[in-house]
């Protein structure tokens, strides 16, 4: 079957191809593009309807942006407060500077428990630190419990979206994966049958595996509590049945007060899935005797976040609440899906977050993977000015690259450097226009249009024509006007 044979996406920015090359297999896969466009159009349609019914949507965004900014501006204080309150409530807080440390902490905790299996609530942060492959290699079997994550895990595929990770896979493909991996040859692609198959598969794991790993949507500083929102109830199962719960969370996830959830939850569900309220919102604080997990650990992950925090324009990246509205609205993501970004964080937020995270410095093509249309900023519930950060990162990439000797003859660099000279004086610009007009005549057809250009220009003419340069510029026309005509 073709879906299984699909080439494996590499979500390691150090190894993934640059974006312009990584998109090519996707653009040649009409089924994948159809799946992606259909899925995000549905979500965006639902979102737009629900946002329209909130008269105070812009005020909510302003409030959320202020809450997140305040939390980040005082992150040290709130993290320590979280640690103190969580500890008092019976939890254990661990600090991980990078991915390797976080993986080791989690493995050590699992070994203390003598765990050979672990069930997981969907957490993109664990994908960021490549937790599953590490645990599997260390002899701990991991079982994803979110439906989309099960599909990916069984299908040996990578997430292409942060809220609906299997967005690129359609029903027929899910059927194929389940039939193959669960040994259900007669399975149909009826959604009810598919969910039933997953439910049967999962129920045993929920009852048998006493150790769970979760992410966190929010950490509440004042109470030391953790919040997870989800749609399927798998999270609720993982939060109640196991004996031990390990929560992995980026340090930026902290909110100062419990009351801040009022703002966040209104925005998150609407932005993420186009729902007024997500079906399950679980909140827990430390350990409650006789109720839920009796061993509770929180692993706080830095992995480059403090260096993002230290830079004023970049800091807003950390306001993100992972709703994915930016990717759902992004005209680039709509064409490419998530795998082309070579990171667990795709789309506009991925294009700014990925290059900034530790161990992810190879993602230099990502800040350029945007037409700067601004749709992401417009929908962002916490008002991250993604285009602004993209521009900041672009200039950093250019500042690094322009020092390389090879760039001297790079047509893009050469062209832009020359353009700078041309624009410095009107007479140089006007002379260049004249030369350009003469030069382009060689490429201009009888119809007055250019159909083929060499070098970088060929990137334009591979799908588009260009009208030949008119014989008179505007300033030339203006100068030739009879003065009394004014």
């Amino acid at each position, binding site marked *: 079957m073709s879906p299984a044979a699909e080439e494996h996406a590499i979500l390691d920015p150090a190894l993934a191809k640059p974006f312009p090359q990584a998109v090519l297999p996707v653009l040649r896969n009409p089924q994948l593009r159809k799946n992606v466009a259909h899925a995000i159009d549905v979500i965006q349609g639902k979102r737009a309807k629900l946002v329209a019914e909130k008269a105070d949507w812009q005020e909510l965004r302003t409030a959320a942006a202020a809450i997140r900014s305040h939390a980040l501006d005082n992150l040290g204080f709130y993290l320590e407060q979280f640690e103190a309150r969580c500890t008092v409530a019976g939890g254990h807080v661990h600090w991980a500077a990078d991915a390797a440390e976080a993986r080791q902490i989690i493995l050590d905790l699992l070994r203390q428990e003598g765990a050979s299996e672990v069930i997981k609530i969907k957490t993109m942060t664990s994908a960021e630190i490549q937790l599953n492959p590490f645990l599997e290699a260390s002899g701990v079997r991991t079982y994803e419990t979110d439906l989309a994550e099960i599909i990916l895990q069984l299908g040996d595929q990578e997430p292409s979206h942060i809220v609906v990770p299997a967005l690129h896979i359609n029903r027929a493909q899910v059927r194929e994966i389940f039939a193959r991996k669960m040994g259900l040859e007669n399975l149909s692609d009826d959604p009810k049958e598919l969910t039933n198959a997953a439910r049967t598969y999962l129920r045993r794991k929920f009852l048998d595996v006493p150790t769970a790993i979760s992410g966190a949507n929010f950490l509440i500083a004042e109470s030391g509590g953790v919040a997870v929102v989800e749609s399927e109830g798998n999270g609720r199962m993982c939060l109640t049945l196991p004996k031990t719960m390990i929560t992995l969370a980026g340090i930026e996830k902290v909110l100062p007060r419990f009351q801040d959830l009022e703002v966040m939850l209104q925005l998150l569900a609407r932005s993420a899935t186009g729902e007024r309220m997500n079906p399950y919102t679980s909140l827990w604080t430390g350990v409650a005797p006789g109720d839920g997990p009796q061993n509770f650990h929180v692993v706080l992950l830095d992995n480059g976040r403090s260096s993002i925090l230290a830079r004023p324009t970049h800091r807003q990246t950390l306001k993100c609440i992972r709703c994915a509205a930016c990717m759902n609205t992004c005209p680039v993501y709509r064409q490419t899906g998530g795998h082309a970004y070579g990171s667990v964080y795709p789309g506009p937020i991925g294009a700014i977050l990925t290059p900034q995270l530790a161990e992810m410095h190879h993602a230099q093509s990502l800040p350029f993977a945007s*037409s700067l249309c601004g749709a992401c900023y417009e929908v962002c519930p916490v008002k991250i000015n993604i285009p602004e950060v993209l521009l900041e990162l672009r200039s950093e990439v250019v500042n690094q690259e322009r020092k390389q000797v090879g760039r001297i003859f790079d047509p893009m660099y050469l062209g832009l450097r020359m353009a700078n000279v041309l624009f410095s004086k009107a007479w140089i610009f006007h002379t260049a226009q004249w030369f350009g007009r003469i030069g382009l005549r060689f490429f201009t057809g009888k119809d007055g249009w250019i159909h083929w250009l060499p070098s970088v220009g060929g990137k334009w003419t591979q799908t588009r024509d260009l*009208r030949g340069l008119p014989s008179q510029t505007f300033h030339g026309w203006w100068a030739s006007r009879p003065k009394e005509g004014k």
Partner: protein
Amino acid sequence: MRASLFITCYNDTLYPETGRAVVRLLERLGVELDFNSKQTCCGQMHANTGFRAEAFSQAKRLVRLYQDTETIVVPSSSCVAMIRDQYPTLIHELGNAELQSQFTALLPRIYELSEFLIDKLGVDDVGAYFPHRVTYHASCHGVRALHLGQRPFRLLGKVRGLRYLELPNIDRCCGFGGTFSVKNAEVSSAMLAVKLQDVVATGAEYCTALDNSCLMHLGGAMHRQYAGMKTIHMAQILASTETSPVEVTA
């Protein structure tokens, strides 16, 4: 009313007919128009491609060039967005107090064409006549940076003979994005294909916009695909009258 025209580098070079139309339109409305022949570029291409050092020099140059000018009209929404959204950071980073105060004084005097007509001149009926089916692409910068809102529709609504056809997904990017169109040519083209489907499906004869960069992208694909429709900057529609119809171009 006096105003000075910042034509922008690519309109000057590639679309002089748009500039001529702006002149015709504004002079018809009694504006005394001026053109500073020293102008070149706002620096958008450099800034958006990450060439900040170069963008600095364009920004400095533009602010100094227009420091004594009363009102500036720009028939390009993305260039105005560059000045409004990116100049503040650039100028701030330069840390030159004199330049900063010149820029602060200049900023409110810069108008995109539809802003100038509606906000400054207070007209939406410019006496235009354009007997064609027209659809309007609300360019990204026009919608999300300048928040042009109803301005373009008010102007088009008053053009006699014009039949406006609504464009589905009107605010979705055409995929141009400046150097994005060549750095990520394949994705850009895929976005363009989707946009063009919407545009062609309207059945319009012309697709208009307030930014020739989107129109260059759309028009380039229309021509390549024999789409049977053309692009036209809104200034040319608004300049067109019964006695003196729009200039026919290539």
